[in-house]
């Protein structure tokens, strides 16, 4: 059994109260909620909730099983009234499985845009991918309406789903009074790729490649979390050197993302020189990624049971390059913070309150810049993080500036971790193989969680195998899925031309969230 995962079945009448108890007091965080079609094992449709404890390294996984069994209606009690963080998960479950969260305050389609006929539920096991694509028809286009704000002087600005420039698709509907945003309704999931269904089809080992492609700039975080889930499911031990390499590369991924994001914020304020410097620094780190692993996006490295590429072969050379990048970064960040016109735009823009962040289950930068101390690297140490000494950061103000400066703080932390791993490797203190050598085999009838703290926040995977060791359910959860619902709250009361800047300060992934 996996030490920090506690599985429990709960009765339907206790489900909501039990979830509310785990969530209450700001101690528990809803990390993941999903359904599984376990009719072939006789357990019917099941809904899982995964709560983590803030102080202890422990995940409480509640399961409500047998939904819709024996001719009953396929519904389950919604926990959203008690646990607001569940509201998107429940809508997703309703779309994908046809299980209705009864008592959900705002139930309408989230993932499937009416392109699907109303009675096709893609993640049910008895419908094949081919059947889904047969059912798709543009005539079915009947999108659920946007939230309409009524009142004198309120007008709507529709933006997207196709945007200027190379941006992923999303439709934003602003209700504004003059230049002031009153409400923002976002329709996402245009890049829904059916990844969850595809995981079941291609098998666990092929799934590594799929996990790397769920969200481009979080490729490594996703494949690491997925491999971790597979390893925990089968009880495979990860060699120390592989664990250190994963930690090193997770931090490299955080480094290029954070620096790229800091630079991107300059595009939001029209500060072209800052943007150009950030982009060139990011490019330098990605070139180092390529040198270390053969992939700028760190793909093709993770495999269940270890890593395929030894990124610690020449730690001394890597250290030298990291030192140079650090110098360049320091001059970049002091240039930005001394650019008054830039900083002025960031301060007090897009404030996200701590209460909203906590209630809606914010993760990553969005949570930590609003005063939530939520970092899986310390709360649930994975890979090599337990052997390292480092400091995590939070900021209290929750505005765009806080998110930029938090990224800057975390860049410092990432550099320290990278240095410390490289120094250890240089001193021959991280030796051994990079994988356990044997061919990884899935265990039958088994399940596990995998998780990492990625650049945008926590990334979770749940994997469950059937009697033959084939995937019964694979549930990825990207950080952005938790953070998109924060956006209407962060932009409320800001002016329309500040939206791109606020959006960039969160830098959420469409692809990851849409899966």
């Amino acid at each position: 059994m996996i030490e920090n995962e506690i599985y429990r079945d709960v009765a339907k009448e206790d489900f909501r109260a039990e979830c509310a108890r785990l969530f209450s007091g700001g101690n528990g965080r809803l990390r993941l909620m999903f359904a599984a079609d376990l009719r072939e094992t006789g357990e019917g449709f099941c809904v899982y909730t995964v709560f983590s404890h803030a102080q202890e390294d422990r995940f409480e996984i509640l399961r409500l099983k047998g939904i819709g069994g024996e001719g009953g209606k396929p519904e389950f009690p919604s926990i959203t009234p008690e646990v607001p963080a569940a509201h998107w998960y429940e809508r997703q479950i309703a779309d994908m499985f046809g299980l209705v969260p009864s008592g959900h305050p705002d139930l309408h389609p989230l993932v499937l845009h009416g392109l699907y006929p109303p009675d096709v539920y893609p993640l049910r096991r008895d419908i094949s991918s081919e059947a889904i694509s047969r059912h798709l028809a543009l005539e079915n286009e009947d999108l659920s309406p946007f939230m309409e704000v009524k009142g004198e002087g309120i007008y709507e600005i529709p933006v997207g789903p196709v945007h200027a420039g190379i941006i992923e698709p999303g439709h934003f509907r602003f209700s504004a009074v003059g230049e002031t945003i009153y409400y923002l309704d976002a329709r996402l999931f245009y890049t829904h790729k059916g990844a969850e269904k595809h995981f079941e089809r291609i098998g666990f080992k092929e799934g590594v490649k799929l996990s790397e492609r769920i969200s481009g700039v979080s490729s490594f975080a996703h494949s690491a979390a997925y491999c971790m889930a597979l390893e925990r499911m089968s009880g495979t031990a990860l060699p120390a050197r592989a664990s250190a390499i994963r930690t090193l590369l997770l931090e490299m991924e955080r480094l290029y993302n954070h620096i790229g994001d800091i630079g991107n914020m300059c595009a939001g304020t029209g500060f072209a020189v800052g943007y150009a410097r950030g982009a060139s620094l990011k490019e330098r780190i990605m070139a180092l990624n390529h040198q270390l692993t053969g992939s700028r996006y760190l793909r093709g490295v993770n495999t269940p049971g270890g890593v395929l590429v030894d990124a610690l072969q020449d730690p001394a050379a890597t250290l030298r390059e990291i030192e140079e990048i650090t110098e360049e970064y320091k001059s970049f960040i002091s240039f930005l913070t001394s650019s008054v016109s830039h900083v002025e735009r960031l301060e007090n823009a897009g404030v996200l309150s701590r209460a909203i962040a906590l209630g809606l289950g914010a993760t990553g930068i969005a949570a930590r810049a609003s005063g939530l101390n939520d970092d899986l690297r310390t709360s649930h140490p994975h890979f090599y993080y337990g052997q390292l000494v480092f400091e995590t950061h939070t900021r209290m103000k929750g505005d765009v500036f806080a998110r930029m400066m938090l990224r800057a703080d975390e860049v410092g932390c990432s550099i320290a971790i990278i240095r410390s791993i490289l120094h250890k490797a240089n001193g021959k203190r991280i030796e051994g193989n990079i994988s356990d050598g044997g061919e990884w085999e899935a265990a039958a009838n088994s399940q596990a969680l995998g998780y990492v703290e990625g650049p945008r926040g926590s990334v979770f995977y749940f994997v469950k195998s059937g009697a033959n060791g084939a995937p019964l359910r694979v549930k990825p959860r990207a950080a952005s899925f938790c953070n998109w619902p924060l956006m209407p709250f962060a932009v409320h009361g800001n002016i329309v031309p500040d939206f791109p800047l606020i959006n960039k300060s969160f830098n959420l992934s469409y692809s990851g969230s849409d899966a």
Partner: protein
Amino acid sequence: MGMSNLQFLIIILLSPLLQGIIRKMKAYAQGRIGPGVLQPYWDLARLFRKDMVISEAASWIFHATPFIVFLSTMAASLMVPVTTPDAPVLAIGDIVALLYTLALGRFFLVLAGLDAGTAFGGEGSSREATVAILVEPMMMLAIFTAAVAGGSTKLSVISKSMHILDSPAHVLAFAAFFVALIADTGRIPVDNPDTHLELTMIHEGMVLEYSGRYLALLEWAHYMKQMLLFTIAIDLFFPYGIAGGALQSALFYAAKVLVLAAAVAATESSRAKLRFFQLPSLLGGAFVLSLLSLITFVMLGR
């Protein structure tokens, strides 16, 4: 037909080059090589060859605006001395007529932004009108200082004074005029000429619905207006050298345009765009400068 009657061609033909030079300077500031200085010409040539997509909601205003904007800018350039102190068409138009000829183009551009009925066009038009209200009086005041000092509202008369920022009043007026120039050409910190981020656009928002030939005319007119404003600044505040031989005055003019271009590129590269509602404080501040310049002139008598 002397040189003086053809000098407006300089503005029409070389304004895309000026745009290319400013872009090149900005690219260097960002550590990029950037496209060649002739790129705006290729862009215009490409646009002239392309088909147009026109909104079904568009009225005659949408079709007329590119011509009105282009022709009004061209007419304005007829009133400006470029390389000789005599403006191409001396008989008509002083600086006031010139500014309001330009304003005619702006008026139609704002209407055209609203005409296609899209959210971004309306947004751009509303913002453009807001900025224009703040910029125009300030620009007029700054110009009046130079006009009072030169004893005429005719640019050719003012430019014959051959001074270079020769009094405190001129320095203050030039500072105000420079801010107006930045705002009027849609540059940072007022507008971002390089962005197509839907929600932040001003000028680009108004012309968003245009394509093909119409867009080419509007872009070209925009380049011309930029060079025109540069030229007005030179005539008002640095006319020194304009009355020499043809070669000498052309060299002086080129050098002065390049210095102004460098100043614009440096301003754009050294700071971020202002938050939209902070624009009144920048433009209001510049208005105070232009008012001070007039008062200074009256008090000092020069």
